[in-house]
C-alpha cells in the first residue's frame, strides 16, 4: 500500500522509562519498532523537553508531544501540517485529563477501554472526527466511582445509549437536553504576568496574558452575552468556537451559546502599550568566590504596585550552577529546599507582609577545585493576587437570553505570575 495515507496513522503512548504502554492504529498496523527512532532522538536530546517534536524516519514521520510525563508519539506517512497533529495530540491529552482527572500512565492503563473508545471516536481514518468534550461525553460517559460500581453489578456500560445529537447540530460544542436544578455560570478571569526583570531591577519585557475560564451549568440552550467595562484593553484575543466573532468585532461583546461544563472562553493579551504593573520586586546579592569555594546568597522579596492587595503564594525557584554542592541558608519566612542532584533551590515564601519583608540568605558551598561559575542563576518567581485583574479588566454584565430561569452568576479575578524571571 503505497498510496497516500494522510493524517495520523498510529499513536503510541510511551512513558518516561521508554515503555510503550498503549498503541492505537487507525489504518494498517505499524510495528512498534518505529519508535526506536524516537528513542534514539530522545537519547540524543538528553533532556525530555529537547526531543524534537518532528522526527523524520525512512518511511514515516514521527510527531510527538510530551505531556504529564507521557510521550504521545504519532506516526505520519505523508505531508500534513505539523501543528495540526500537535494540536490534536494536545486535545487528546486534554480529553484524558477531562475524563480521568489526570493524564497519567496509571489513569490511562486503568481506563484502557474508555481510552480506546475515545480514540476511536476522535479520529476516523486518521482525520479528527469528534473532538469536542461535550460530544464525546454524550458518546462515552466519563468514569465515576459510582458508575463503575453500578456497572459491575448491573452490567450496564459506559457507552451512551442515547445517540449523540450534538454531532448533528450546528452547535457541536453543546450537548442537548442539559438540565440542572441550580443554574450557575462562573467566570474566572485569570491574568498572568510574563516578565523579564534585569539585574538592576528594570523591566526588560513584561506583558499580561489573560484567560477567562468558565464553568457553565445552565439548563437548556442559554444564549449568553458577556460585556466588559473596558473591552479595549484586550489587544489580541482568541476565542472558543462558540463565540460570535462579528458581535465582538462590532460591539466588543462576547455573545455565545456556551458548551456545558468547564471550558476556556477566551484567551487574550493586554495591549503592550499599557505599562504593566509589576507587583513584586526582588533584591538580590549572589556571588561566588573562587579561592574559598563558597559563595554568598542573599535575596529579599518585597511588594510593589499591588493595588492594595496581598501578594500570596510566593514561591521562588532557582536553578543553581552545576558547581554548587550545597546551600546553607536561613529564611526569615517560609521554608526552602535545595536538591543537590538537580541543583534546584525552591523557597516557598507564602504571603508577603510589607512590614517584614521575607529574606533568604546564607552560604553557598561550591565544589572545591572547580572554577567558579561565571553566571548568576535567574530567579523564577511565582505569586498570586486574589481578586485582582492586574490589567484592570472588569466584567460589566452577563445577560442570558433564550431561557427563562435566573441563573446564579459569579466572576472571580486572579492575577498570577506567568513566566516571571529575574536575571541576576
Amino acid at each position, binding site marked *: 500500500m503505497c*498510496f497516500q495515507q494522510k493524517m495520523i496513522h498510529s499513536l503510541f503512548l510511551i512513558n518516561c522509562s521508554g515503555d510503550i504502554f498503549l498503541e492505537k492504529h487507525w489504518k494498517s498496523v505499524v510495528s512498534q519498532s518505529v519508535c526506536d527512532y524516537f528513542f534514539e532522538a530522545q537519547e540524543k536530546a538528553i533532556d525530555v523537553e*529537547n526531543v524534537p517534536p518532528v522526527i*523524520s524516519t525512512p518511511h514515516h514521520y514521527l510527531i510527538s508531544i*510530551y505531556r504529564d510525563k507521557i510521550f504521545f508519539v504519532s506516526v505520519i506517512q505523508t505531508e500534513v501540517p505539523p501543528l495540526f497533529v500537535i494540536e490534536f495530540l494536545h486535545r487528546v491529552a486534554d480529553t484524558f485529563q477531562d475524563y480521568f482527572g489526570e493524564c497519567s500512565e496509571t489513569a490511562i492503563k*486503568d481506563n484502557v477501554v474508555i481510552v480506546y473508545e475515545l480514540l476511536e471516536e476522535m479520529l476516523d481514518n486518521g482525520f479528527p472526527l469528534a473532538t469536542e468534550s461535550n460530544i464525546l461525553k454524550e458518546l462515552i460517559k466519563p468514569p465515576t466511582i459510582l458508575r463503575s460500581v453500578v456497572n459491575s453489578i448491573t452490567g450496564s456500560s459506559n457507552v451512551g445509549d442515547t445517540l449523540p445529537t450534538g454531532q448533528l447540530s450546528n452547535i457541536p460544542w453543546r450537548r442537548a437536553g442539559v438540565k440542572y436544578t441550580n443554574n450557575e455560570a462562573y467566570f474566572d478571569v485569570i491574568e498572568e504576568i510574563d516578565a523579564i526583570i534585569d539585574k538592576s531591577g528594570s523591566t526588560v519585557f513584561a506583558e499580561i496574558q489573560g484567560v477567562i475560564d468558565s464553568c457553565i451549568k445552565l439548563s437548556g440552550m442559554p444564549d449568553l452575552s458577556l460585556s466588559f467595562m473596558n473591552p479595549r484593553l484586550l489587544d489580541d484575543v482568541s476565542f472558543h468556537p462558540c463565540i460570535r466573532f462579528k458581535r465582538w468585532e462590532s460591539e466588543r461583546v462576547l455573545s455565545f451559546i456556551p458548551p456545558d461544563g468547564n471550558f476556556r472562553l477566551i484567551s487574550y493579551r493586554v495591549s503592550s502599550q499599557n505599562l504593566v504593573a509589576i507587583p513584586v520586586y526582588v533584591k538580590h546579592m549572589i556571588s561566588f568566590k573562587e579561592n574559598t569555594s563558597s559563595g554568598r546568597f542573599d535575596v529579599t522579596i518585597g511588594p510593589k504596585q499591588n493595588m492594595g492587595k496581598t501578594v500570596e503564594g510566593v514561591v521562588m525557584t532557582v*536553578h543553581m550552577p552545576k558547581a554548587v554542592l550545597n546551600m546553607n541558608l536561613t529564611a526569615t519566612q517560609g521554608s526552602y529546599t535545595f536538591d543537590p542532584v538537580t541543583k534546584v533551590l525552591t523557597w516557598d515564601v507564602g504571603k508577603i507582609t510589607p512590614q517584614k519583608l521575607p529574606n533568604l540568605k546564607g552560604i553557598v558551598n561550591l565544589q572545591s577545585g572547580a572554577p567558579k561559575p561565571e553566571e548568576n542563576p535567574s530567579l523564577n518567581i511565582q505569586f498570586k493576587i486574589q481578586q485582582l485583574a492586574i490589567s484592570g479588566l472588569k466584567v460589566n454584565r452577563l445577560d442570558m437570553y433564550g431561557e427563562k430561569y435566573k441563573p446564579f452568576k459569579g466572576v472571580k479575578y486572579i492575577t498570577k505570575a506567568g513566566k516571571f524571571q529575574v536575571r541576576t
Partner: protein
Amino acid sequence: MAASPAYGEEKGGSSSLGEPEYGHDPASGGIFSSDYKRHDDLKEMLDSNKDSLKLEAMKRIVAMIARGKNASDLFPAVVKNVACKNIEVKKLVYVYLVRYAEEQQDLALLSISTFQRGLKDPNQLIRASALRVLSSIRVPIIVPIMMLAIKEAASDMSPYVRKTAAHAIPKLYSLDSDQKDQLIEVIEKLLADKTTLVAGSVVMAFEEVCPERIDLIHKNYRKLCNLLIDVEEWGQVVIINMLTRYARTQFLSPNQNESLLEENTEKAFYGSEEEDAKDAKAEAASLAKRKPYVMDPDHRLLLRNTKPLLQSRNAAVVMAVAQLYFHLAPKAEVGVIAKALVRLLRSHSEVQYVVLQNVATMSIKRRGMFEPYLKSFYIRSTDPTQIKILKLEVLTNLANETNISTILREFQTYIRSMDKDFVAATIQAIGRCATNIGKVRDTCLNGLVQLLSNRDELVVAESVVVIKKLLQMQPAQHSEIIKHMAKLTDNIQVPMARASILWLIGEYCEHVPKIAPDVLRKMAKSFTNEEDIVKLQVINLAAKLYLTNSKQSKLLTQYVLNLAKYDQNYDIRDRARFIRQLIVPTEKSGALNKYAKKLFLAQKPAPILESSFKDRDHFQLGSLSHLLNAKAVGYQELPDWPDEAPDPSVRNVEVPEWTKCTSREKRKEKVEKPFYSDSEGESGPTESADSEPESGSEEHSSSSSSGSSSSDTEEEEEEEDSREQSEDKEEEEEEEEKRPKRKDKDGSRKAVSGSAGSPSEEEEEEEGAKKGKKKAPQGRKGHAETSSEEASTSESSSSGSDSGSEAEAKQRKPPSSKASSKEISLLDLDDFTPPPPQPIPSSSIISTSLVTDLEGLTLTDTSLTPTLLSPAFSAVKTYELLHRMAGEGLAVEYCFSRRPFPGDPHMVAVQIQISNNTDTEVKNLRVNEPKPLSGMRIQEFPEIERLAPGDTASVVMGIDFCDSTQAANFQLCTHTRQFYVSIQPPVGELMAPVFMSENEFKKEQGKLMGMSEITEKLMLPEKCQSDHTIVQQVTSAANVGRVPCGASNEYRFAAKTVTSGSLVLITLERREGSTAQLTINSEKMVIGTMLVKDIIQALAQ
C-alpha cells in the same frame, strides 16, 4: 506484560461476581501453557448469552490490543457478536474488527451483511456508523460494496451520513486506487454540498484522492470561502491549505509590481504597515493608483473570510491562515498575522517549536512584520534549548540598525547562560549581526575577542570560529587580533577552533610574519596528537609558509609533510602527497608548481553568514516539508503565480445553489445571524475594514462617521455594491435587484431630511412594505439593511428613522443625524391615524418637540379620562424564539409591536417572524399545546400552510400575560418537528401608553403614594443628557406615553397595564450634575420595581 496487573485489577469487579476463573492473565500463567487456556475462557465468555460476560471479554481483548498483543485467534468468536444488541459490546467488536479484518479477510466477510443492513437503518447515526466501520475494514474483496455504499450515502438526506461518506472516500481509495474515477464523481457531488458539516471532510477527501483536479473547486470556491468560518476547526485547516494552492493557480500576484521596487521602499513600507488600518488602506490606494493591478474580488473574498480565523483557539487554524496570508496577501496586509503568531508562543513548547520555525522563515522575507514584537522573542533561562535557538534565529533576523544595540545587550545576557549549546548559538548569532550590520561590526568583534579569554573552552572555540569569519572581511586592520589568537593555540583544545586559528595564521601570514613560523614549529611538535582537521590545517599552514617564507620554514614543512606521509588517515596522507608535489619543485613536478602561490594564497571571498531559514519559503509554510526543509512524501508543491490570470468567470455559479433565493434581501436574511457572521461579510459596515488590519478605536470611529455623514455612507455602499456585484456575478438579476435598492436608499434619505411627498414617495412605500414583509425586523448589521428598513419605517413615521434603529439595544450604530429627526413637520403626523394592518412593526421614536406639538393638537383638558393611545412611542427590539441552529434551519423571532391586539384588548400583541432557512418547504406551521400558567391566555396565530425555503412569514399572536413577566410556553409545530418555545415579556411591554394632562397626572400620582411609590436615584451618563435621548430611552424600555410637564428638568410618562388597566406613572427628575431621580407610582408593586430596574438600565446604556 509488566502493565498487566493494572488491567487485571480493573476487571476485579467482575470476578467478585463469582464468574468462573477466567482472570488469568497471559503474564500470570506459564509462558507456553496458558496460551490456549486463556483464549478458551475468553471464547467461552463471548459465546455465553450474558451481555455482561461478553462485555467483560471484549474489554480484556481490547486491553490486549492496546498493549500491542496479538489477539487474532479470537476472530471467529468475536465476529459472531457483531450483531450484539448491547451497544458497548458492539462498539468494542467494531474496534476489534477494524484492527484484525485485514489479517482474516475471509472471516471478516461474515460481518458484512450486518453493516449492509445498518446502511438501510432509518436512524442516520446508525447508517453513519455502519458506513464508517464498513469502510474501515481493509478487505479488498468488498470494494464494490463499499463503492456502492459510499455512492448511496453521498446522496443521503442526513448531512452527517454524507460527512461519513466523505470520510470513507480516502479509505476506499487507499484500498483500491482503480476506483479513482468513480470516487472523483462522488467527490464532485459532495463538493457541491452546502452544509458546513460536509465541507471539511470532502475537501480532505479531495486532497487525498485528486489534489490535481483543481477544476473541481472553481464552482465551489465562493461557497467554501463563505462557509469556512462555520466549518469545524480541523476542516478549516484542510480547506485553507487547499485554497492557498488554488489561489496560487488562479489569481495574479498582488505583489508583482512591488518586487521591482528596491529594498528601501519595502522597509519604509513595513514601518507603517503593522496594524494601522488607515495606513494600509492609503497604501493600497496609492498602490492602486500607481499600477494597474486590481485584485480579483475572489482573491479578496478569500483574504477577508479567513482573517477572523486568526482568532481561533486552534493553533493549527491560526497557522493555516498565517501561511495563507504570507503566500497570498499583498505585502501591506501580511502584517496582521504577526500578532496571532506571537500569541501562539505562549502555547505548548511543541507548538512554539513549529511556530518559531515558521516565524524564522517569515522574518527573513518580511522583517518589519515582527519588529514590534521583538521582545516577545527574548529568551528565558527556562526555555528548552531547541526553543532558545529558534528564538535566537528570529532575533538575529530581526536585527537592524535601529534595534541592534538592544539586541546585543540581550545577547550579552545570553552569553553568560549555563546552557553551552545556547551560548555557542548566541556567538554565531553575534557573528551574523556583525556581518549584516556594518555599523556594529567592530563592537561585535571586540566583544568576541573578549570572549576569547572566557573560562569555558566551548565559548572560546565558537568565538574563534566566528572571529575567523569576521576577520576574513577586513584582515588588514586586525593583525592584533590574529596575534592574540595565535597565542591561544597553547590553550585551546577544541579541534575546530585550533583549525580555524591555523587557517587564519596561514591565510594572513604576511600580517604576522614573526609569529607564524613559531606557531608552525609548535604544531609540528604536537602534530601526531592532533585531530584530523587540525592536521590538515597544519599541512595547509606549512604549505603557505613555505611559499611566502621558505627560508624560515622549509625544514619545518618537510618535517610536517613527512609526518603526514605516514599518518593513519589516508586523507592526510593524500593531502601531504598532493601538497608536496605542488610546492616543492622537482624535475617531475609539472607546470602547476609555478602557480602554487596563486593556488594557495588567492584572495578568498569572505563567507556569508546567513540564516539556515533563508529560502525555506519555497515550501508552503506550516507544512511538514517546510519544517524538515525537505520534500515530504505527498507534499503538494505550492505553484508560482501565473503570469496571466486564468478566466475568473469559471467561478461563476449560474444559479447560486447555496442561496436558492434570487433576491439579495432574502439571502442576507438567511445569514442574518450566522455564528461568526463574517461569512457573508459583504453586508457589514466592517466589511471594508475587514480587508485591512484594524485597531479597535479606529473601527469605532469609522462606524460612527459612516453613520453620521450620509455622503460617506453612500460612497461606501456604492463601493460595496459594486464589489458585491462583481463577486456574485448574478449579472442581470443582480442589476435588477440593485436598482430598486438604490432607490429606496435614496428614498430613505429623503425621508430623513423631511422632504415628504416627493414624487417617488409612493413607490418607496410600496417597496418598503414589500421588503419589510420579507424581513425580520431585528437589530441588524449593515447599511443595506438599515436603509431598507428605514424605507419601510418612513411610511409610518418619517421621524428619526436612524434613531429608531438606534434604539434597538442590540444595534451598535451610534445615533446619526439627530438634527433631522427634530425637523418634523406636521405633515408627518399621519402616523397617528391607525396604520393599515400590516405586519411590520414601526420603529419610531418621537422627539420631545413632537410630543408637545401633539399635545397641543389633539389633547385638551377636556378629556379627563385617560385615553389609550395607538402605539406611537415604540422602539422595537426583537427577541429570539427559536434560533436557526436549534430550529434546524427554522428561525423564529418575535417582537412586541405595541399595537393593541385586535381581538382582545387585554392581550399583548406579539409579532412573530418566521424564516425558513432550510432547503425544503416547511408545512403546517402552527402553535400547539399552549401551556399557559394560570390565568394566562394565548390567542394562536392562524396556521401557516407552507413556507418556501428562504421565505419569511410574519404573524401576530396575542398573549394575555396577566400583568406578570412569567413566560408563555407553547409548542411550535411544523409538519415534521415540534419545538418548545417560550415568550417572556419584558415588563415594559405589559402596558400601553395613556395620555393625560399634567393635572391629571398629579392627581393620579397623589393617589398612589406610600407603598405604591418607588424612588431610585441614578446617574445619567454623558450621552444621555439630552431631552431627546432620555425620552427615547424610557420609551424604548417601556411602552409608555409622555405626559407634558411644566418644569424643564422633569419628564413624566404614563401607561396602563394591559390586563388589569392599573396606572403606571413614571417621573424622572434631573438634578444637579448628572444625577437624577426616578419615581414610579403604580399599585402593581412588582411591575413598578421591575420597571425601575429596566429604565435605569436603559438610561445607563
